[in-house]
């Protein structure tokens, strides 16, 4: 785990002190809102529909028990006793008061956290595979590189005013759990001739013009990573369109100039700046690799796990959905669902945060992760301890066995909180989860990703949902558009629009029709929704969504 050094500590404290002064000047009237707004955004403070919102970065989704506990303390002391974990591995507090924000930032700094560059046209929180350092299929832990990128990008003088926000995602495994192809830069580790390096993808993004990123370099040796990423960002910084906010993301730059032209420019810039790095980045990386070294894995019997599986069907069902394969066969990766049926996706109460912090400290080598799917991960749990972990989770409302299933929904805050929203997304997620719970179909349906955004900005990743839902405002009423067949893995596909949208009170029924069509069309239970969709195409699902008049009458 990386801990702040003196330089980081001093930098963050100075920023807090600066912001404290800015808040005072705003309150006494010496700063206007126009002057204050960019300053608060630089510190992650938004103004939403009902209140301020503070967005705190969780770099590459990694937390310790102490950090999680501090988030719980902040939620209790300055918010309403809960926090919202987001698809960008941030946590958002929905109810802070302006006067308290400097105190909150101070409390974050106490545990080596901050809210810097969680907004604005800067390089945002670098996101990573939430199974990093633990997954069985991983080549190398990507977090040292992610931390290197974080240090390099934080307060980087050249990149504080990019044409638009800039998001980097990284994975150390060939299986992409970090949606790297939907990021401005996606880094996917691969091995060539025994040497680990990265496939570098640029120009992915969702939002109003969704695009799948393209490969700019098929193999980049690890040692060249920082100068290469800097070359990409600096080419974009010059070439990106500042004349039109909607054309300012690098995906448009790549689209307009073509990937070949971008590659030429990036490679030229890379040649130019590489000598200037002079090896300092590699020394730092070597140090960082030390601080992320694997925990001392325990050696003890795993019998308790297998006997619990045999004895307790509830435990077995949870283990089947919520555990993933660890690189150490005596261990497992535990995904804690923040998607209890009917609850708000991604929300955890302060009590739940403390339970998760305790479990990490007692059974998880003091590590926690936040996944982009808005769940919490205990990456390293010895199998012998899993029954105890499950029992503790179950008694705190955290034992839902639904990872990867239909109720494990990503939903953005939507019109319940967000000032940009055109419709609500949270209650749609709540009602879909409740419906399929009542129907008792969830486990029969199998792997299914539903993702919901409350406006075209696509913060809920709806384009890459197997079923995507986009909330719109159609003539003053909420209306929900469905996309089908999206996929956020290494084979990223943007979903296809199914047809006309549905009213708020129709959208859950519409989803049920798609699912029932799938159940009747699949060749057998091993054919997932996505596989069936790829085999059959959209038509049978559209037929189910939009039944012809006479059939509808007969039904």
């Amino acid at each position, binding site marked *: 785990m990386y801990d702040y050094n003196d330089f980081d500590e001093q930098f963050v404290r100075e920023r807090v002190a600066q912001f404290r002064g800015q808040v005072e000047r*705003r*309150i006494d*009237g010496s700063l206007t*809102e126009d002057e204050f707004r960019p300053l608060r955004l630089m510190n992650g403070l938004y*103004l*939403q*529909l*009902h*209140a*301020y919102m503070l967005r705190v970065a969780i770099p590459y989704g990694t937390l310790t028990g102490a950090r999680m506990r501090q988030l719980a303390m902040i939620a209790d002391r300055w918010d*309403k006793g809960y926090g919202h974990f987001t698809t960008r591995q941030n946590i958002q507090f*929905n*109810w802070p*008061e*302006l*006067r308290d924000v400097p105190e909150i930032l101070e409390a974050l700094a106490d545990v080596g956290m901050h809210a810097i560059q969680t907004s604005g046209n800067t390089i945002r929180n670098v996101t990573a595979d939430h199974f990093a350092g633990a997954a069985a299929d991983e080549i190398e832990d990507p977090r040292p590189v992610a931390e290197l990128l974080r240090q390099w990008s934080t307060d980087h003088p050249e990149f504080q005013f990019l044409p638009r926000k800039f998001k980097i995602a990284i994975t150390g495994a060939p299986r992409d759990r970090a949606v790297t192809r939907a990021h401005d830069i996606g880094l996917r580790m691969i091995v060539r001739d025994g040497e680990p390096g990265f496939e570098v993808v640029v120009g992915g993004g969702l939002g109003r013009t969704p695009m799948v990123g393209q490969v700019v370099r098929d193999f980049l040796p690890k040692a060249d990573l920082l100068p290469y990423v800097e070359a990409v960002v600096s080419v974009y910084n010059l070439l990106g369109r500042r004349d039109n906010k909607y054309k300012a993301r690098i995906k448009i730059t790549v689209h307009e100039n073509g990937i070949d032209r971008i590659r030429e420019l990036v490679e030229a810039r890379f040649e130019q700046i590489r000598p200037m790095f002079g090896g300092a980045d590699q020394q730092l990386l070597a140090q960082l690799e030390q601080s992320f070294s694997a925990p001392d894995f325990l050696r003890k019997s795993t019998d308790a796990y297998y006997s619990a599986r045999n004895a307790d069907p509830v435990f077995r069902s949870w283990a089947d959905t919520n555990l993933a394969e660890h690189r150490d066969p005596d261990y497992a990766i535990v995904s804690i669902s923040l998607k209890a049926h009917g609850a*708000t996706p991604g929300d955890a109460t302060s009590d739940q945060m403390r339970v998760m912090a305790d479990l990490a400290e007692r059974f998880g080598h003091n590590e926690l992760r936040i996944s982009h799917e808005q769940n919490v991960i205990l990456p390293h749990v010895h199998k012998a301890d899993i029954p105890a972990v499950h029992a503790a989770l179950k008694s705190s409302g955290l034992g839902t066995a639904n990872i990867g299933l239909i109720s494990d929904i990503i939903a953005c805050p939507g*019109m*319940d*909180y967000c000032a940009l*929203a055109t419709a*609500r997304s*949270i*209650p749609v997620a*709540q009602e879909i989860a409740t419906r399929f719970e009542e129907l008792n179909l969830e486990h029969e349906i199998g792997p299914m990703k539903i993702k919901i955004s409350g406006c075209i900005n696509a913060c809920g990743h709806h384009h890459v949902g197997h079923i995507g839902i986009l909330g719109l*405002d159609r003539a*003053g*009423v*909420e209306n929900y558009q469905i996309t089908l067949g999206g996929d956020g893995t290494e084979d990223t596909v943007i979903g296809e629009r199914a047809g006309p949208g549905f009213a708020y009170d129709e959208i859950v029924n519409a989803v049920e029709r798609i699912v029932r069509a799938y159940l009747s069309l699949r060749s057998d239970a091993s054919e997932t929704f996505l596989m069936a969709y790829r085999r059959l195409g959209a038509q049978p699902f559209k037929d189910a969504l939009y039944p012809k008049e006479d059939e509808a009458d007969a039904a």
Partner: protein
Amino acid sequence: MTRAFTPKIVTANALLEGDVIYLTADDRWSRNLSEAELIDDEAVAQLRLLDAERQGGVVGAYLADAIAGSRGPKPAHFREAFRAKGPSNYAHGKQEDRKHV
């Protein structure tokens, strides 16, 4: 043909808490939509907005459509209805305050 003017209210967020507030006819800011001044005239609405923007303690004042109700103005659009009530997933915001009175 000119379109009929939809009545307006002036609304903003309070600087300190961020809470939704409404301009009243007697130049106060109320947390309650029902106390807002309903403005029938476009020119007056613009002037009231200018008045509002000059005041401290408020952020992002704008004109929102509203309709006359038996107990003061009511929201014309669902966004304003949510602003007047609070989020739908928890009884937080204004609906929470109302529980206490």
